[in-house]
């Protein structure tokens, strides 16, 4: 009979769940595009249980992570920081990983991994430049869907630098470029390089060692992935499960707890 564990990652901008069977197989997952402090977490939990045809009582262990993890103190069996959970999830997907770069809605984290365990980390502080929020703001002013940024950036033919490190001032810079008639694809490419520059700076504080894996929602933007790859000089691996990585790690830790 299978042992089911549930990992819940409540971020600032999205709520994600992953249900594992026997610590190996993903039987269900859910993602709601609103995060801590909203109806998102409960809806994500309801959706993952419904899609697996399971109830809370059938979960051997539930572990919550992410910015909103403490709001589930009465529901989850344990809370852990998203740092370790992202490390765990990335190692499950890429057993040779040594550096994890996670770019979420408002956080950027770089994790150093040894034998699948996080041994050191660095995070951004009180500045959303380089995060998903930065890209949301840029997509809005460019009147494109944030999901299309990667595709559009790949069509760039000319380098356009976005020098402001502040999201608000970078937005002003983008507006100036648009008023000068600069091609949107070139601007988007410049934005990707700006994100890569900031994140690479953080990564170098911890040290970058192969394999380098990128997780979090922004890893779905191939433009950012490529720009970061160029900046760091290391190949970057991603997975279609990139946005679920924290919840996956939480479900894996939950399974470890059951097996102790």
């Amino acid at each position, binding site marked *: 009979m299978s042992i089911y564990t549930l990992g819940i990652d409540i971020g600032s901008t999205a709520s994600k769940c992953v249900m594992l069977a026997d610590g190996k197989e993903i039987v269900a997952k859910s993602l709601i595009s609103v995060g801590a402090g909203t109806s998102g977490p409960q809806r994500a939990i309801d959706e993952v249980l419904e899609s697996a045809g399971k109830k809370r009582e059938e979960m051997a262990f539930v572990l919550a992570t992410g910015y909103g993890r403490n709001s589930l103190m009465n529901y989850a069996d344990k809370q852990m920081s998203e740092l370790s959970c992202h490390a765990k999830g990335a190692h499950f997907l890429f057993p040779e990983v040594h550096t994890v770069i996670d770019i979420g809605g408002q956080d950027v984290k770089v994790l150093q991994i040894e034998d699948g365990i996080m*041994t050191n980390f660095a995070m951004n502080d009180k500045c959303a430049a380089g995060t998903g929020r930065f890209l949301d703001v840029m997509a809005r002013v460019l009147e494109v869907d944030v999901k299309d940024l990667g595709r559009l950036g790949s069509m760039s033919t000319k380098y356009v630098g976005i020098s402001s490190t502040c999201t608000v001032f970078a937005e002003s810079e983008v507006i100036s470029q648009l008023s000068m008639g600069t091609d949107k694809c070139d601007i988007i490419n410049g934005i990707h390089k700006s994100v890569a520059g900031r994140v690479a700076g953080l990564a170098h504080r911890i040290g970058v060692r192969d394999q380098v894996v990128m997780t979090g929602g922004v890893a779905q933007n191939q433009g950012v992935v490529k720009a970061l790859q160029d900046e760091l000089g290391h190949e970057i691996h991603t997975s279609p499960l990139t946005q679920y990585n924290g919840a996956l790690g939480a479900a894996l830790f939950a399974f470890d707890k059951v097996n102790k």
Partner: protein
Amino acid sequence: MAKTVSPGVLALRKVVDDVYADARKAKAEGKLVGWSSSKFPCELAEAFDLNVMYPENQAAGIAAQRDGEIMCQAAEDLGFDNDICGYARISLAYAAGKRAARKFDPETLEFIIDPNSGKPLKDENGKVVIDPATGKPKKDPKTQVPYTVLDDIHEIEALPETTEKEIAYKNFRREAIKPYKQMRIPQPDFVLCCNNICNCMTKWYENIARMCNIPLIMIDIPYNNTVEVADTNVAYVRAQFDKAIHQLEELTGKKFDEKKFEAACANANRTAKDWLKVCDYLQYKPAPYSGFDLFNHMADVVTARGKVAAAEAFEQLEKDLEETIKKGESTTPFPEQYRVMFEGIPCWPKLPNLFKPLKANGVNVTAVVYAPAFGFVYNNIDEMARAYYKAPNSVCIEQGVAWREGICKDNKVDGVLVHYNRSCKPWSGYMAEMQRRFTKDLGIPCAGFDGDQADPRNFNEAQYETRVQGLVEAMDANKAKEGNK
């Protein structure tokens, strides 16, 4: 159950209370009171029997009393940039006459209580009483406090006193200024500045002198790019010591008293040695106290190191710690599972928030850089000049790293928690490089967090908790790795 406080800690608190009380008394008697930077050679002021207050210590206290923001905002309203040190902003607002005060009704002369203040009301069984109308916990009226407002002593003193009502109002407004000692220090008659602690000091104290139209005695100690202090550097500082003595003679009308100076030097040396001995007790595993307590005891090292009472209080604390060790006890209110160095000044307005995740995870602070940084001893005035060259932000990075790595090793830490103190440009600016060196040289995890020593607007509790939790997880992984070797 009330927490027992050791005789040594009580003695240390009294020393600081007396420094503040003596300054208020001196002012009331018409004597000169000065304000001084924390690492100005206090021995010189002691030689002239001068009462001196310390704005850094004052600002830390104001921030801990949760009045840092209102005072910082007052300084910003005066035109000071919000990027400058929070201590400086608080002090400049204070020098300009601004005070945090309790709001009152001018007609009834009664304080206006903030209904959101205070602790939850508990019944005889210790259970929180819920207000049926709101569904929220009721507040215990005994713990509620008035709203805080900003007042100005110059405005107060300019109020008329022609009627009884006016006199009563004026007196009440004076009394409404918050009564804790740091909000009641006397205005300065002179300022003593030594910029070894940082460069911000220079302009901070020049501004106070200009604002209050009072003499400034400045000792300039440049940033030192080498670990050793060259003889030419010593000569530069020694010449300024001599000039400062001459300026103090002019200020006080007294001659420099060599014997009092020597006594102050002997006291300062004794206090420094005792301070180091107390700090060394953190090497025990588990430590008999929390390194956070050292931040409180720092007040004595800053405000009273030239006084014999400070040395005696530290000696009493040493005895208390010796007893604690013999009994196998600790005053740390949780079992010590991890040991960390806390790098930087604490976030004074958010101490409970700093402490909560540390306590929850069994993390004890067993190393702080203030230990070696304030433990300097000397045998003559030239050695004194050399010693005053060694302040945390005026030594080169190699010296700074050596101090910290030394205490990390001696005090057997498992990790480092680095406060990127946004108020302090040097103490946040070099932190990233320091953190990189700690990781490389010590092989232990380090976590950094943004905060501020006095301005609560620069601290985020959720971000801090995540970083502490991450540090704990990394320390766990490191311990497991070491265990498997």
